[in-house]
């Protein structure tokens, strides 16, 4: 047996380089830390910090991506003694990978081979590393599926990856990583692509397996809340360097480095807005405090009134591509946004929140319902009038890398709405664009640049500048900060709140992130299966959630505070049913109970299915 005082892994002065066009690029340097047996070490950092490269180096997988370990030692304690993985030969590495070190990747769909059954994928490793016969391997696979608590494990063995839900797929991936009882499990952003309830399930599963088997876990993540829930010790990385290392409580309560402090300050924590009447910009370290915060209007005037909005997408099939079913993306949704206020729509993927936002703009045509913007009916406009109506409502998209035309200079893209709506021309146009760049705090020298020359956060600022160009009354922000690093996310959120305070613009803020929503919104609507299941003021929904789905959603959110761990118990949420219904299916209208003034909770149909 291994000596428990000795570290399982000891990384010493690791340096990894990638070949670039102009000489080598250093991805990681001077990184040293250890992992003790049975310990969870979280490596946390923003994109480009080298956290994934570090984990891939340990498996020597970094070489398959064009990288090279050019310095340092990676000592791994085996039964036969200590091996330096940085200099191990390929045969040794093959016997370690998947046997003594298991790995879980980010995307559960792509880390399973779609053409093999679950059984085939699970037994492969067992037969190679353990030399088990087919029958024994199958029995072991079944045992593993039971260990990760997949319902009906016998049936799963015969299924293909596409037949399983995202959460189940990730359970299979974990079961595969556990197959040979590794002493170290490397999990590279294993829950980033998952919904929050599934994330909670997977986190609790990894934690339970760790306790049951005594294996160590190297957990790579960008999410401080996940770190707080999972870690025994934390390694903070920034631009290829190790910034700080320490026990999780120490890092969260008493961070020593400025970068760690800044990172923690940028993380919104669910519950920290309790008792506050209005959204509040985040206090960022190193940045001047936000100039102004949005205040609730004294006499709210409605700006956007959505009533009975329904959007369905046809599912085509058969020889003649007829419509054979409908996806009920948005089902009888009604709400109002007041002038100068932010309404947040939250929910998990596929709940219809994005479709709802797109239907309001009519980027997706709603099937029925009415949308009034300042009392004028958007739904009945023809194409030309609709284009004119977009002067008053604009959209900011999720992916800043895809929402700007790569072939156009930034100033041209921001100028487009001004030119098209004939709001400015000539020197006035130039001034307006310059002012907009100032407004979103981008240097004017960026005006002549192309999108690829900017970082994600800077691009999102350009997208906001473009939306602001026409002085819209409403901006629909569809997951506008989800693709950004947490410190950048905080800056963009603060910018949006500041703009709201100064310009009185209203936001429809669509997001899956409850903590962010709590920070920015006046009112909150929770969506589930196309319906608005609960809507009310932020305080009403967050402090007194009534609908069972809202409650389960809130309980699943990891909190960025290691003293408030909620994942210890194994949890399983009910999977979200399919929103595809046969043609002619007419679900009933949404009926609500008003539990307190302005706080509506859906009463029909769904209550039973989520509890």
């Amino acid at each position: 047996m291994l000596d428990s005082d000795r570290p399982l892994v000891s990384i010493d002065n690791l340096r990894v380089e990638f070949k670039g066009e102009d000489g080598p690029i250093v991805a990681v340097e001077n990184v040293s830390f250890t992992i003790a047996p049975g310990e969870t070490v979280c490596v946390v950092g923003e994109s480009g910090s080298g956290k994934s490269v570090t984990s891939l180096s340990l498996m020597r997988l970094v070489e398959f991506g064009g990288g090279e370990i050019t310095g340092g030692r990676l000592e791994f304690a085996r039964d036969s003694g200590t091996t330096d993985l940085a200099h191990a030969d390929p045969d040794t590495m093959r016997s370690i990978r998947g046997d003594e070190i298991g790995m879980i990747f980010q995307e559960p769909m792509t880390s399973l081979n779609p053409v093999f059954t679950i059984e085939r994928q699970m037994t492969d490793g067992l037969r190679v590393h353990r030399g088990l016969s087919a029958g024994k391997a199958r029995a072991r696979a079944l045992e593993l599926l039971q260990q990760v608590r997949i319902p009906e494990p016998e049936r799963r063995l015969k299924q293909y990856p596409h037949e399983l839900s995202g959460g189940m797929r990730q359970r299979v991936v974990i079961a595969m990583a556990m197959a040979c009882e590794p002493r170290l499990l490397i999990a590279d952003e294993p829950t980033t692509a998952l919904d929050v309830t599934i994330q909670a399930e997977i986190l609790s599963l990894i934690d339970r397996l760790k306790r049951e088997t005594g294996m160590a876990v190297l957990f790579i993540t960008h999410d401080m809340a996940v770190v707080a829930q999972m870690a025994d010790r934390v390694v903070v990385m920034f631009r290829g360097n190790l910034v700080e290392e320490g026990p999780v409580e120490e890092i969260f309560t008493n961070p020593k480095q400025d970068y760690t402090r800044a990172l923690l300050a940028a993380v919104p924590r669910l519950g920290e807005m309790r008792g506050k009447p209005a959204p509040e910009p985040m206090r960022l370290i190193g940045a001047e405090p936000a100039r102004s915060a949005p205040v609730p209007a004294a006499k709210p005037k409605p700006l956007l009134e959505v009533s009975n909005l329904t959007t369905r997408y046809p599912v085509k099939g058969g020889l003649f591509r007829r419509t054979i079913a409908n996806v009920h993306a948005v089902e009888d949704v009604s709400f109002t946004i007041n002038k100068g206020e932010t309404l947040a729509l939250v929910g998990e993927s596929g709940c219809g929140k994005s479709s709802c936002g797109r239907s309001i703009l009519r980027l997706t045509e709603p099937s029925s319902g009415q949308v009034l913007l300042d009392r004028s009916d958007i739904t009945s406009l023809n194409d030309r009038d609709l284009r004119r109506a977009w002067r008053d409502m604009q959209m900011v998209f999720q992916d800043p890398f895809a929402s700007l035309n790569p072939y156009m200079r930034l100033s041209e893209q921001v100028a487009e709405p001004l030119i098209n709506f004939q709001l400015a021309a000539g020197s006035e146009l130039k001034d307006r664009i310059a002012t907009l760049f100032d407004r979103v705090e981008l240097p004017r020298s960026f005006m002549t640049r192309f999108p690829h020359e900017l970082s994600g956060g800077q691009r999102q600022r350009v997208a906001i500048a473009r939306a602001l160009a026409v002085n819209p009354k409403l901006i629909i922000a569809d997951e506008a900060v989800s693709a950004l690093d947490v410190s950048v996310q905080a800056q963009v959120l603060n910018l949006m709140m500041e703009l709201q305070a100064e310009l009185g613009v209203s936001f429809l803020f669509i997001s899956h992130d409850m903590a962010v929503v709590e920070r920015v919104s006046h009112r909150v609507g929770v969506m589930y299966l196309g319906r608005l299941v609960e809507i009310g003021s932020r305080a009403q929904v967050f402090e007194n959630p009534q609908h069972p789905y809202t409650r389960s959603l809130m309980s699943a959110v990891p909190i960025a505070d290691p003293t408030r761990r909620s994942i210890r118990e194994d949890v399983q949420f009910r999977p979200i049913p399919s929103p595809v219904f046969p043609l002619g299916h007419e679900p009933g209208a949404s009926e609500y109970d008003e539990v307190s003034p302005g706080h509506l909770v859906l009463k029909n149909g769904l209550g039973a299915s989520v509890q």
Partner: protein
Amino acid sequence: MKLPAAFRNSKGMIGAVLVLAILLVAVIAPMLIPDDWATRMDMRARLSPPTWAHPLGTDQLGRDLMYRVLLGAHTSVFIASSAVLMSIVIGLPLGLISGYVGRMTDNVLMRLVDTLLSFPALLLALTISAVLGPNLQNTIIAIGIAFTPYLARIIRGEALRVSHMPYVEAARTAGNSDRRLIVRHILPNIMPAVIVQSTISLAFAILAEAGLSFLGLGTQPPDASWGLMIQASRDYLDRAPWTALVPGAAVALTVLGLNMFGDALRDALDPRSKGAS
């Protein structure tokens, strides 16, 4: 004027020089070399290997291969580039409209294209050429039409992909009309695919012209075209391989030059390849 960065590397440079040289030959050779030099037969020197008198050798009728390849450039390059240009002029709007408008329009246009696609390109060109009669102009039309469906298909796919990009939706909400949306946002983003496909098409067009000529519908003997020369060399490959190698090298150099030039052109148009400025 400064050359775009994409042309300053060796690959782009070679491509540009090759394409320029071939164009120059195609334009200038017919002015400098009398027509009959390529058709003058020297029966005593049939299938002669390269000598001082015939630097690139002669063909089965004792015609000088150097002059034939220089004069043939005009026919081959002119026919191929006109045909490809024609397929772009028809295929680009067809694919763009199909991909952008979608629905019924897409269905109708694409079934049309599928019908054309179901005939082998050469057979289609052959039929068109046979109906219209064998001359230079009809050869161009025939090859141009035969190549259109391939281009239209590729452009439609690209247009479909690009028109669903968030930046196109953002541009739509910025008040752009359909026309402006297509011209300013979709077109520049599908140009890389158009350029790559066009350079490949050009190579195939040269060979397609050869095929038509072989069947007696393209260039008429004794006029020279590269394709015709390759076809004619078929029977003498064992005895006089240079008869195939000389025009073959001309086609290969053209295709190579076009590919390199096309890649460089694509990079030159892409702001991302210029690096941080």
